């Protein structure tokens, strides 16, 4: 591997600017030769980066690693602002107290109840695409409105307001796409909007998730502070905008540029759930890994001594390509059996929207491929416009024809 560092010096991280959905080959070298390495992110203190599946799972799942310990530290990060508060900076039992309040709304059982409405929305969006005729920008016509409408319905956010928070939600995934003061402004707008919606629920109670949070808050047993409620609701709304939205287009892009796998899925639509898992493994959604966990005691990872108080970042996308766990890890194989990927993370911070995202991604692929089996890129792959300056990799537009 090319390494021009001084001995013991930390590598700048991310290793390179994101190139479409390609993972930097340095991860594979590190997994073999230097599985736990020193890195320096654009902001914050130096950290360890773990690249092997087993180590990443330990960092994310082992209680000897803490997120709460990041509070008060200059956390290694790719964003100028430090999160500092909120559910992602908590450990059990504080974390469990908050998580439990919303976990019920996102269980597999509850999410299945949303599937028929999701199918209906997906069908309406494809109807509109067919009426307008090809070509279409899939990002605008399908990938964005589908998850946005579903999360708005679940939370009880009026869809008519979506223009507002669609602009603001970029702030939670922005690294350099927005100036730092704009990020703070948008985050403030998001919280103010949510505070307004919460006030409305106090006047007129509802059965949606925000209405339910307001009821918990107002029963007065200190289970939820006002600030926690606002941040939780704003976080869910923003997460619902910036993740599944991006992944629908990423998944379609991968399928359209892997014609053999696409043909397989068209011929065998029952493979859709397995295909979604494989795409979650294969597509490195994050431009880089972050959210370091701090060791609470001395321990070793792949033979490297980690001291109590050291921040360690688990490279999730690298773990998902670890040949020790996944056979032929760089190949997209929609028929892959057991697929214990870490696409939703692992441990207490495992994505709360995972079951919802799975359902939406399954519906998205089933509907698009079922109704538009001739779906294809409308431009040359090289002309596709990828976003930059974000925590996530995604397409600005995805011109398709059928």
């Amino acid at each position, binding site marked *: 591997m090319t390494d021009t560092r001084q001995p013991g010096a930390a590598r700048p991280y991310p290793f390179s600017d994101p190139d479409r959905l390609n993972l930097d080959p340095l991860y594979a070298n590190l997994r073999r030769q230097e599985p736990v390495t020193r890195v320096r992110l654009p902001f914050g203190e130096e950290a360890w980066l773990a690249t092997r599946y087993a180590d990443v*799972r330990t960092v*994310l*799942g*082992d*209680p000897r690693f803490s997120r709460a310990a990041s509070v008060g530290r200059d956390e290694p990060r790719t964003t100028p602002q430090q999160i500092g508060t909120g559910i992602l900076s908590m450990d*059990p*039992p504080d974390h*469990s*107290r908050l*998580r*439990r309040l919303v*976990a*019920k709304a*996102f*269980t*597999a*059982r509850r999410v299945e109840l949303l599937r028929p409405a999701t199918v209906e929305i997906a069908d309406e969006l494809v109807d509109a695409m067919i009426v307008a005729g090809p070509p279409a920008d899939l990002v605008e016509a399908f990938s964005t409105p589908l998850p946005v409408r579903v999360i708005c319905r679940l939370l009880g956010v009026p869809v008519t307001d979506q223009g507002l928070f669609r602009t603001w939600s970029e702030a939670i995934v922005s690294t350099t796409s927005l100036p730092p003061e704009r990020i703070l402004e948008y985050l403030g707008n998001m919280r103010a909007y949510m505070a307004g919606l919460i006030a409305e629920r106090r006047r007129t109670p509802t059965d949606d998730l925000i209405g339910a949070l307001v009821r918990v808050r107002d029963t007065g047993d200190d289970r939820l502070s006002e600030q926690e409620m606002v941040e939780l609701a704003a976080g869910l709304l923003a997460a619902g905008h910036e993740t599944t939205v991006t992944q629908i287009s990423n998944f379609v892009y991968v399928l359209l540029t892997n014609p053999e796998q696409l043909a397989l899925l068209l011929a065998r639509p029952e493979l859709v759930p397995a295909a979604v898992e494989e795409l979650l493994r294969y597509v490195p959604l994050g431009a880089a890994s972050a959210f370091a966990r701090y060791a609470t005691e001395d321990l070793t990872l792949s033979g490297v001594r980690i001291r109590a108080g050291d921040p360690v970042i688990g490279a999730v996308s690298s773990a998902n390509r670890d040949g020790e766990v996944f056979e032929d890890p760089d190949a997209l194989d929609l028929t892959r059996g*057991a697929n*214990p990927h870490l696409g*939703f993370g*692992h*441990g*207490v911070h*495992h994505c*709360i929207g*995972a*079951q919802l995202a799975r359902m939406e991604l399954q519906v998205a692929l089933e509907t698009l491929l079922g109704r538009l089996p001739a779906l294809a890129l409308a431009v040359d792959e090289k002309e596709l416009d990828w976003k930059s300056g974000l925590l996530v990799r995604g397409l600005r537009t995805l011109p398709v024809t059928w």
Partner: protein
Amino acid sequence: MSDRGTAWRLSVDADTCIGSGMCAGIAPGLFTLVHGVSVAREAPIAPDPAAVDAAESCPVEAISIRDAADDHLVAPEP
């Protein structure tokens, strides 16, 4: 939730478990991941709020806690 019992039995439905690691992170003494699937401690436990946190937080509701005496469901809430 009723926690009047003096001993609880934990169980994990291995076919439902997706190995999120949620329970093992919340209650590491009670749940362990074995080959990617959570396994609950076999012996009855003294009532423990961390066990309820784990059962209530499981994304696929694979965990049940039952009163060891009369088998009634302690968590998760329906």
